[in-house]
């Protein structure tokens, strides 16, 4: 019973995840006074890509072939582990939120390798930058969760779920987490999913050589990851209301905020990102301090 | 009676070898003389090391301390004779060399066995005079220069020591009414001596004999002499001679301890010891000549020994004496092996010696291992003795000086490994090829290494008793 529910919610999450991206795109275009692609465009893309033949580089090895599968696996596994529609159902004995972070790292590891595998300069550049940003994002990511779990007294997801009450510490850490989220999901101001401009792209550069089903998998993985992170955010850092309804509302709200930010801000230079991430790290440390001061 | 035989043997071999031109034959005779003398002196050790002192016709006096030094001299003289046999095997008219060699050893035996302090003084002077020609043996500019410095400086030192001896005699005469310089009598009357006079005397004696023992800042003759003398002589100088003059100091220290205590002598020795360590450490860092390097390391080790006396206590003295033994063995090994290398490369300059390991595998590895032994790495025995000395320091609460010793030792280790890894490793000069090494010498190296190793891992019983009886004499334990 329980296991079926868990799988069900994972599937739901997977199914829903492209929608969020579509929603954000749509909203952005709206704000820009454009018509924009339909809400369900991401689904169309994925289906289309699954329908296409694939071309891969001669220079590449099996790493290049398996990387998409590893990536999607990690995403799905994360989806299985993380709370979403029915937060009360959790797989027990799979560690804590740290584990989810590490799992994402696994996926990234392989994508980066794949980026290098083709021998194209873009790929290398992309993976280099990706690893750079993620390495800098990691501390903020962990410490913000750390701050939140100080309240919960445990890093186990189920014990994190009830969330605290609104406190400065929680807000700070939530903000830090959100900044990291933007970085991790390749959004403005760190990266820009829409451009394929050689010198600015990061995540896109890494997967430039992919086509067909592999690309589909990668994109799907991206959507899933985004939704997982969002759900973690809303469950841990936004302790208002409970139940599936509230969950969806909160997700949509955060997505909307993201869209607005993407429109409002411009992409940063690569080395400005350092400051950005360090800021979020400091913010999370501030959260810890605030928690200790009891505010 | 053994003593007499010892001296006769040495005189005989000296006299005979004087008339033999052929290096090999003369060397063999010398070696024979050393072996006979060595065996008998070892017998003497065996008889007296139990702590039973015996006096021979009121002229010679042999007790535990003497036994220890007899052991030292006999072993190192035998080894050196064996080595010099190889070293001079294809030289001609080495008669003079062999003669002086015997006289030199003779005088060292004489120093440690004679009872009368005046005679002892004279014997020490004779060691200088006899080894002067050995140092200047090669009779080129540098050799003569070294010899000159050696004689002049040592004579000055010794002369000062004589002044101290006279002061001793004076207080013995006035306070205790002894009209003789016999150590036994003076020692017996030790309590009556006038402390101030004794202190005044000790200053001159320590400086005087310290000059000969190579304590800084009176050590300057030492590197010159060691670097210019033929290698066997260098070995004998630092293996035995330095210790012999230390022996003289110890004798006076014993007498004075009755009236002024060990601390006075110990403090002065400690001062010189720490200076010696410092000087050695820094001069070794920037040394070019391998034999000078080894000479400075001798200075260092004399420093450690005197630090042992400074820290005092049974432990300190034990460490010092044990260190004396180890240093004799290790340093002889070093001189022997590096002598082989020098002979092959034809230079003392360490920057010109490269890749010795490929040219002379055995000698080079012996030198390298010996270097680690000298630097005081376990499991070699010098580690144990240094450890003992340092322990005495820490136990006695000399935290600073002991730490200083540790630091200097570290620097010295650095210097040694820096120079030696440069020589042993690296590419060999293209014109050199691996040569067959003399078996005897290789065996000698092996034996010495094994001795060092064995002493390091476990102190055998007879050595223990030897040292213990020696320290008993020092502390006046009957």
């Amino acid at each position, binding site marked *: 019973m329980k296991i079926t529910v868990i799988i069900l919610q994972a599937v739901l999450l997977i199914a829903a995840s492209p929608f969020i991206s579509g929603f954000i795109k749509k909203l952005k275009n709206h704000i820009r006074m454009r018509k924009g692609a339909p809400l369900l465009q991401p689904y169309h893309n994925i289906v289309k890509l699954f329908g296409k033949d694939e071309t891969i580089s001669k220079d590449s090895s099996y790493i290049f072939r398996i990387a998409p599968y590893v990536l999607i696996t990690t995403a799905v596994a994360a989806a299985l582990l993380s709370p979403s529609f029915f937060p009360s159902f959790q797989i027990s004995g799979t560690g804590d939120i740290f584990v989810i972070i590490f799992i994402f790292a696994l996926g990234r590891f392989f994508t980066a390798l794949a980026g290098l595998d083709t021998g194209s300069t873009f790929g290398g550049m992309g993976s280099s930058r990706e690893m750079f940003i993620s390495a800098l994002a990691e501390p903020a990511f962990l410490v913000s969760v750390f701050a939140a779990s100080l309240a919960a007294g445990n890093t186990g997801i189920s014990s994190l779920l009830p969330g605290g009450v609104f406190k400065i510490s929680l807000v700070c850490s939530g903000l830090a987490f959100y900044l990291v989220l933007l970085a991790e999901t390749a959004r403005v101001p760190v990266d820009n999913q829409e451009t394929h401009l050689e010198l600015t792209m990061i995540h896109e550069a890494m997967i430039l050589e992919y086509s067909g089903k592999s690309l589909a998998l990668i994109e799907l993985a991206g959507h899933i990851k985004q939704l997982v992170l969002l759900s973690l955010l809303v469950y841990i850092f936004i302790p208002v209301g409970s139940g599936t309804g509230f969950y969806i509302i909160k997700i949509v709200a955060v997505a909307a905020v993201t869209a607005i930010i993407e429109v409002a801000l411009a992409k940063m230079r690569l080395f400005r990102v350092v400051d950005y991430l360090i800021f979020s790290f400091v913010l999370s440390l501030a959260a810890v301090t605030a928690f200790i001061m009891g505010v | 009676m053994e003593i007499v035989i010892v001296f006769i043997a040495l005189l005989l071999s000296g006299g005979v070898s004087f008339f033999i031109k052929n290096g090999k034959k003369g060397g063999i005779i010398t070696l024979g003389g050393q072996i006979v003398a060595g065996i008998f002196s070892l017998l003497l050790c065996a008889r007296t090391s139990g702590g039973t002192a015996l006096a021979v016709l009121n002229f010679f006096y042999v007790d535990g301390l003497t036994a220890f030094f007899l052991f030292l001299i006999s072993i190192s003289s035998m080894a050196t004779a064996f080595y010099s046999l190889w070293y001079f095997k294809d030289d001609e008219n080495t008669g003079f060399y062999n003669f002086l060699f015997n006289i030199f050893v003779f005088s060292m035996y004489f120093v440690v066995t004679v009872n*009368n302090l*005046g*005679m002892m*003084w*004279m014997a020490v*002077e*004779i060691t200088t*005079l006899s080894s*002067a*020609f050995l140092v*200047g043996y090669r*009779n*080129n*500019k*540098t050799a*003569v*220069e*070294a*010899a*000159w*410095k050696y*004689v*002049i400086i040592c*004579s*000055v030192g010794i*002369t*000062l020591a*004589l*002044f101290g001896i*006279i002061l001793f*005699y*004076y207080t013995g*005469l006035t306070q205790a009414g002894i*009209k*003789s*310089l016999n150590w036994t009598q003076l020692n017996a009357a030790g309590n009556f001596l*006038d402390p*101030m*006079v004794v*202190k*005044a005397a000790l200053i001159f004696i320590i400086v005087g004999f310290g000059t000969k023992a190579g304590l800084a800042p009176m050590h300057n003759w030492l*590197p*010159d002499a060691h*670097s*210019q003398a033929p290698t066997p002589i260098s070995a004998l100088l630092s293996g035995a001679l330095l210790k012999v003059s230390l022996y003289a100091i110890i004798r006076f220290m014993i007498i004075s301890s009755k009236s002024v205590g060990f601390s006075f002598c110990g403090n002065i020795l400690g001062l010189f010891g720490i200076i010696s360590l410092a000087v050695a450490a820094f*001069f070794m860092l*920037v*040394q070019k000549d391998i034999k*000078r390097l080894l000479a400075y390391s001798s200075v260092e080790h004399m420093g450690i020994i005197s630090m042992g006396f400074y820290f005092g206590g049974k432990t300190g003295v034990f460490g010092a004496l044990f260190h004396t033994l180890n240093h004799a063995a290790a340093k002889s090994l070093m001189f022997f092996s590096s002598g082989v290398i020098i002979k092959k490369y034809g230079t003392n300059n360490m920057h010109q010696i490269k890749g010795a390991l490929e040219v002379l595998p055995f000698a080079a590895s012996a030198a390298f291992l010996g270097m680690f032994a000298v630097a005081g790495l376990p499991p070699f025995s010098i580690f144990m003795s240094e450890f003992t000395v340092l322990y005495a320091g820490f136990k006695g609460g000399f935290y600073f000086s002991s730490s200083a010793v540790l630091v200097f030792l570290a620097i010295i280790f650095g210097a040694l490994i820096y120079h030696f890894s440069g020589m042993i490793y690296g590419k060999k000069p293209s014109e050199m090829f691996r040569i067959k090494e003399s078996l005897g010498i290789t065996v000698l190296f092996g034996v010495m290494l094994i001795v060092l190793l064995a002493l390091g891992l476990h102190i055998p019983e007879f050595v223990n008793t030897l040292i213990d009886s020696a320290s008993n004499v020092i502390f006046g334990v009957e």
Partner: protein
Amino acid sequence: MHIELMQYGVLLMAFAMVAAKRFSALVTSFTIQSFLLFILTLSEAIKTGSTQLYILAVLIFAIKVIGIPVFLGRITKKIKVPDEMGLYVNTTLSIIIAALLSGISYYFIRNFLPSMEKEAGIALIIALSVTLIGLFIMIFRIKALAQVVGLLIMENGIFLAGASITGGIPFFVEIAVSFDVFIAVMILGVFVYRINSLFTHIDVDKLNELKG
């Protein structure tokens, strides 16, 4: 009384040697000093009437008054080097320093050996200052032979000490010491020869091949 006189004479000679510029003068004054020592010993012998001291006196005369000066003279003839022995410090300063040294020995004896009876004290002071002066000459005179003589002066000083404060240290020790000195001088002489033949000079300060 005349004993003190002799002792002062020895000291005076030491000063004379400090003042000496030329080597021959040095040797001469050394001879005189040794002669004074001989007189001292002789008078001691006459006083005590012990044969040992007689023999000793004869020995001193033979070695220090005759033997060594002659030997030195022959060396100087053999090696044709100018008679001046280079000075590091000029005569006046040397004398001042020598006086200082006597002062040091005075201070030393008076402060550290107060227990000593007076005349022995004076003798010791003189002996010590002579020794130190010998040392001084060894340090501040360039030529090799000067150093030899300096060594001999130190020897004399110590002999003075031995003779005057202890009435002669044991007989055979004295003998041994004197012979020892003689041998030492011989050997040093040999080395002076060698130096001269190898370097064509006997300026010891130029012997600085070996350093560091």
